[in-house]
């Protein structure tokens, strides 16, 4: 690990000042992603700014409108087991508990989870080409081992899949990321927070160097009480997803009244399709409707040699999840 100096920030302003003073500084929260990448030599900060001393950012506040405000420093465990999260947004609790392990979730913060790096095999492999790690070097995943890679939102320069579980739920729930920096506070829609690779795969987030995440707002959505998260992976626990589904369903008789659907590990960012949801709204809540929506969801998907299986797997998983939610809604 490269040498670095530690700066302990007690306030957001102090953290912003330290970021501004040091262009190669990184904030550290739980450290579960950053410390690992520092050991790998992928992250080589000159300064680490410890934000764990920032007060008031580690709780989950219930909002009157049925929503939540989740502090950036709340641990993944605390959020997953929080009763308001479990009751109002079960998909979120289930997504967190499907990720990593208790030890990691106890350490990992919500802000850090949003900013976790991809798990493409070539990213931390210095012998390989990777446009995220070394911009302009190329992408060895294109024709290499791309079983875990994305089929949606890819570019000629990067096909790494977004690995987070909870971000899939937050995408389905239209969460809002609250950040602060030199130019003050701003609120970023979850849909804009993660960036597709395009021509600049190394630019991954809508977040400036001087900005830090304060919290994640989850707007009230009563029918999200009927929601769930399904994660399919190579082993039952402690593995990143091959595909994952976060969905919520509201019925009006036998008809789909409202629906939310996001799919994880198939896109370069947590993926959602307005067309797929529109195709379900007002349609009969049948397997045919769900299968049609699943087809629409993956229109335009570009499989590589190793990851084409994800498309059929995800389509079937969508149907299964929607059928499950339909039974629960009746």
């Amino acid at each position: 690990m490269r040498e670095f100096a530690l700066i302990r920030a007690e306030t957001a302003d102090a953290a912003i000042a330290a970021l501004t003073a040091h262009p190669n500084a990184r904030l550290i929260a739980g450290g579960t992603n950053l410390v690992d990448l520092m050991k790998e030599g992928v992250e080589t900060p000159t300064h680490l700014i410890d934000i764990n001393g920032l007060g008031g950012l580690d709780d989950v506040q219930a909002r009157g409108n049925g929503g939540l405000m989740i502090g950036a420093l709340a641990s993944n465990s605390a959020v997953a087991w929080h009763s308001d999260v479990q009751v109002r947004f079960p998909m979120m609790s289930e997504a967190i508990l499907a990720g990593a392990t208790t030890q990691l979730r106890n350490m990992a913060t919500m802000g850090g989870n949003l900013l976790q790096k991809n798990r493409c095999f070539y990213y931390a492999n210095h012998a390989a080409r990777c446009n995220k790690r070394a911009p302009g070097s190329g992408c060895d995943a294109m024709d290499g081992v791309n079983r875990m890679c994305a089929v949606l939102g890819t570019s000629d320069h990067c096909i790494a899949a977004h690995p987070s579980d909870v971000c899939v739920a937050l995408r389905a729930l239209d969460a809002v990321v609250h950040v602060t920096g030199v130019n003050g506070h701003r609120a970023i829609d979850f849909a804009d927070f993660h960036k597709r690779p395009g021509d600049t795969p190394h630019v991954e987030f809508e977040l400036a160097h001087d900005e830090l995440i304060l919290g994640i707002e989850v707007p009230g959505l009563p029918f999200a009480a009927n929601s769930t998260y399904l994660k399919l992976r190579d082993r039952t626990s402690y593995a990143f997803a091959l595909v994952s589904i976060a969905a919520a369903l509201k019925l009006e008789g036998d008809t789909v009244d409202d629906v939310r659907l996001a799919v994880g590990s198939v896109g370069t960012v947590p993926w959602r399709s307005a067309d797929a949801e529109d195709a379900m709204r007002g349609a009969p809540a049948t397997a045919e409707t769900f299968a049609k929506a699943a087809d629409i969801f993956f229109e335009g998907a570009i499989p590589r040699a190793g990851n084409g299986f994800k498309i059929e797997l995800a389509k079937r998983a969508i149907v299964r999840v929607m059928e499950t939610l339909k039974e629960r809604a009746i």
Partner: protein
Amino acid sequence: MAASANQLRINLAINDTVHGLDIDPRTTLLDLLRETLDLTGTKKGCNHGQCGACTVHVNGQRVLSCLTLAALCDGVQVRTIEGIGTPDDLHPMQDAFIAHDGFQCGYCTSGQIMSALAVLEEPWGPDAAAIKEAMSGNICRCGAYPNIVAAVQEVRKGLEVDRNA
């Protein structure tokens, strides 16, 4: 690791003993325990957060010491396997691991026991399936899993009996 110009001082309690230490900020809690304090009961398996051999408790919660920077542990309470029981006076969880053959080579065992103790305080359901999930962060190359689950369940049921008595 060469000495760093960025040395910093931390104070932390390990198994109820307070230590004031000057450390290189790159030091992980795992290396601090094993290399500096000679508390070698905590094991290094993968060193990348993937195996659970390095599990310890920080402020009462189980964490991975290999991904924890010691520099971020100023003022915390750490508990390691050395603070759980002694050879003459084993903790009931340690007794249960022996009774159920919950290990073979023993390399993963201190991490398994630190996780198992934390599980007793966590909101998991009562059945064995919940324990398998709760313990999935502790890999055992010898494959002692069924016996580990049995040991944890025995201790949980014992607690239940105590609570109802």
